[in-house]
C-alpha cells in the first residue's frame, strides 16, 4: 500500500522513510510517473538502494544521507542528495543527473555509462572506477585508485587526487585542479587541448562551479598497456 499524496500542483510527492519502506518508494518510482514532477524523500537515514533503476525525467530530492547505491543505474531522473552518499552512489548511471551536496564514499559513479554525477564535497576511494561514458565532477578531493580502468567519460577533480589515479586507464579523460599523489600504471599527464578546455568548461558550468579550465591538468592513457608486452613487466 503506497501512502502518497498526489497534489494537483507541482508540489512533490512525499515519501517518509521513517514510516514507509524503500521498497514502496522504488515501486512507486518504477510505476507510471506521468504528472509527477518531483518526489521528496524524507528521513532517508542512510538507507540503501534509494531511488535505484529509475527511468523517468522526474526530480527526486533526498533530504539527508543515503546508504549504498543511491540512484544506482539512474536513467533520466535528476536526483538531489542533500546529505552525504554511501558507497556506489549513481553506480552504472546511464543518463540524468545525480547531485550530492556532501561527501561521497567509495566507488562513486562506478561504471557509469552516461549522465552527470556532481559531488560537492570529497569522494572516497575508487571514484569513477570502470567509468564507461558518464561524467563526474567532484568539488573536493578524490581518494586513491580513482578512475581505475576507466574506459570513457570524464572525471573532474577540483581538489587533490590520491594514489594510483587512473590506473590501467582506457579512453576516459581526467582533469585535476590540485595535486596528484601518484599516477597509476599507464596514466600520464598530457597537454590540455582546446577541446579539453571546452569540455571542462561545459562540465564545470553544468555543476555550477566557478573554477577556470586553465587551472586543471589533463590525465589520459599512455596506451602502453593496450597490448600484451613482456617489457611491461608487472604493470598489468
Amino acid at each position, binding site marked *: 500500500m503506497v501512502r502518497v499524496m498526489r497534489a494537483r500542483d507541482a508540489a512533490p510527492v512525499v515519501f517518509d522513510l521513517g514510516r514507509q519502506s524503500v521498497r514502496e518508494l522504488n515501486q512507486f518510482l*518504477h510505476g507510471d510517473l506521468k504528472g509527477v514532477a518531483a518526489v521528496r524523500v524524507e528521513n532517508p537515514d542512510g538507507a540503501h538502494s534509494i531511488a535505484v533503476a529509475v527511468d523517468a525525467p522526474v526530480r527526486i530530492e533526498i533530504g539527508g544521507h543515503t546508504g549504498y*547505491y543511491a540512484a544506482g543505474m539512474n536513467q533520466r531522473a535528476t536526483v538531489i542528495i542533500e546529505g552525504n552518499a554511501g*558507497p556506489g552512489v549513481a553506480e*552504472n548511471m*546511464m543518463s540524468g543527473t545525480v547531485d550530492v551536496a556532501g561527501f561521497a564514499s567509495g566507488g562513486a559513479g562506478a561504471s557509469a*555509462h552516461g549522465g552527470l554525477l556532481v559531488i560537492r564535497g570529497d569522494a572516497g576511494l575508487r571514484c569513477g*572506477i570502470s567509468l564507461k561514458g558518464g561524467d563526474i565532477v567532484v568539488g573536493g578531493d578524490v581518494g586513491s585508485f580513482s578512475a581505475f580502468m576507466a574506459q570513457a567519460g570524464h572525471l573532474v577533480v577540483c581538489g587533490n587526487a590520491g594514489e594510483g589515479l587512473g590506473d590501467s586507464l582506457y579512453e576516459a579523460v581526467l582533469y585535476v585542479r590540485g595535486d596528484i599523489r601518484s599516477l597509476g600504471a599507464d596514466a600520464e599527464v598530457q597537454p590540455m587541448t582546446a577541446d579539453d578546455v571546452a569540455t571542462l568548461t561545459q562540465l564545470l558550468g553544468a555543476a555550477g562551479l566557478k573554477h577556470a579550465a586553465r587551472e586543471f591538468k589533463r590525465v589520459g592513457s599512455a596506451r602502453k598497456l*593496450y597490448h600484451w608486452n613482456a617489457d611491461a613487466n608487472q604493470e598489468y
Partner: protein
Amino acid sequence: MATDPHIEAPAIPEALQREESSLYNRHVLDYIQHAAATGLYEIRGLGAKRRLPHFDDLVFLGASLSRYPLEGYREKCTTRTVLGTRFARKPIELDIPITIAGMSFGALSANVKEALGRAAASLGTSTTTGDGGMTQEERRSSKTLIYQCLPSRYGFNPDDLRKADAIEVVIGQGAKPGGGGMLLGQKINPRVAKMRTLPEGVDQRSASRHPDWTGPDDLTIKIKELREATDWEKPIYVKIGATRVFHDVKLCVHAGADVIVVDGMQGGTAATQLAFIEHVGIPTLAAVRQAVLALEELNVKEQVQLIVSGGIRTGADVAKALALGADAVAIGQGVLMALGCNSESYVQDGKHLSAVADYRKLRTAPGYCHHCHTGRCPVGVTTQDPVLEKRLEPEVGAQRVRNYLKTLNMELTMIARACGKQNVHHLEREDLAALTIEAAAMSGVPLAGTSWIPGMGSDPKQV
C-alpha cells in the same frame, strides 16, 4: 682395476641414452623454452586438460532386488526443474535440469549466441549472457535468459536487466577463480568494442573484483539493490569458481542468493592464462560435495538451488551431479563441441566442408584445438571474424545443440529409471559408488564394494 683395451665397453642402452625426465619432460621443456623466447605466459581457451578426479570415477548402483527399477518406456520420469524459489516472485521453470552456461558475445559470435538461444528455447531451458552484455539476437531467440552482472560491467545496463529472466552475479569462474576476464585484440571488432566501450583491437583485461562492492557484507547489499531495481521479481544467482566452496556457498546463502552456481576447475574459458586453467581451483567433483554440505548445514537445501558446472559432458555426468545434490547443471564446452568445436568439418548449405587446413594454420588439429583466444576458430564458433563466423549457421547449430541436450536428457532419465526414480531430482548419493579412493574422498561416496569413505568422520568445517 685397469680396463682391458681389447674389450670394447658395452654401448649404453638406447633407453638410457634417451631417458626422458618426468620432471622436465618435453611438455615442460616446451613451456620453459617458450617463456624464455617470449617473456610471456601462455594464454589459451577451453579448460583444464590434465587428468583429474571426475564424474567418470563414480558409477551408479542400478536397482535390482533391494530397489525397484522403473520401466524405461512406460513409466514417467520427470525432469522439470525450478530455480529461484527463495525470494524471487518469478522463479525460473525449466523442462530439463541442463542449462547453457554463461559465455560472452565477443568470445562467441552473434550467430552462436542465436543458435544457443533457439536450441534452449525449444527444449525449455535457459541460456546465459557473458562478459560483454546482452545481444538482441540472444534475447530474441532465448525464452529464458540469465543476465550476468560481472566485475567488468561491460554492456551492463538497466534496460537489459529488466529484460532478463534472472540475474547472475559472477564472483568467479572455475577456469580462473580470482582472475578477471580476458579477450584478446583479435576479437575486439567494432561491434564488440562498442558493446564494451573499449577501443577496437585492445587486449582486454577485465577487473577481477566488482567496482562497487567488496566482500560478502557488501554483496548482501548489492543483491538487495538488484532486487529493488527489478521489483523483487527475478531470481538472483551467484556464481563462484570452485576453491573454498564450503565457506563461499555459506556466504552466498547469507548474502541472499536464490541460486548458487559452482563452477569447478574443469570449467572452460575463451582466454585465460595457462597457469590459471591448470593450477587454480578444485575439481568439480570435490566442489559439488562441499557446496551440498554447506547447504545442508544451513538447512536451506530446499530453498536455495545449486547449479554445478565444469566438465559436464554426458547424461551420466548430469545424473551424477544431480545424485550428489545439484539441482541443475550448466554446460559450456560440451555445447561448443556440439556446435562443431574441434570437429574436422563445418556445415555450409547442407554440405560438410573441411576445416583441417585452418586448424593447421593455428598449428593444431581437430581434437587438440584450444585456440578460442585467437578468434580464428576454424568452425566459426569462437570468432568475430566476418568470414569465419558464417561457418556456423544458426539453424544448423541450434539443431545440433538440441540433439546433444536431448541425448543428455534421455541418458539422465534412463539412469534415473534404472535407479527406481520417477523424478531425476530424486537421484541421491546412495545411488552412487566410487571407483577410486580420490573420488570417494572428494565426493563423499563410498569406494565400490566397501562402505569406506576416506576422511569420513573428519570435521567438514575443515574443508
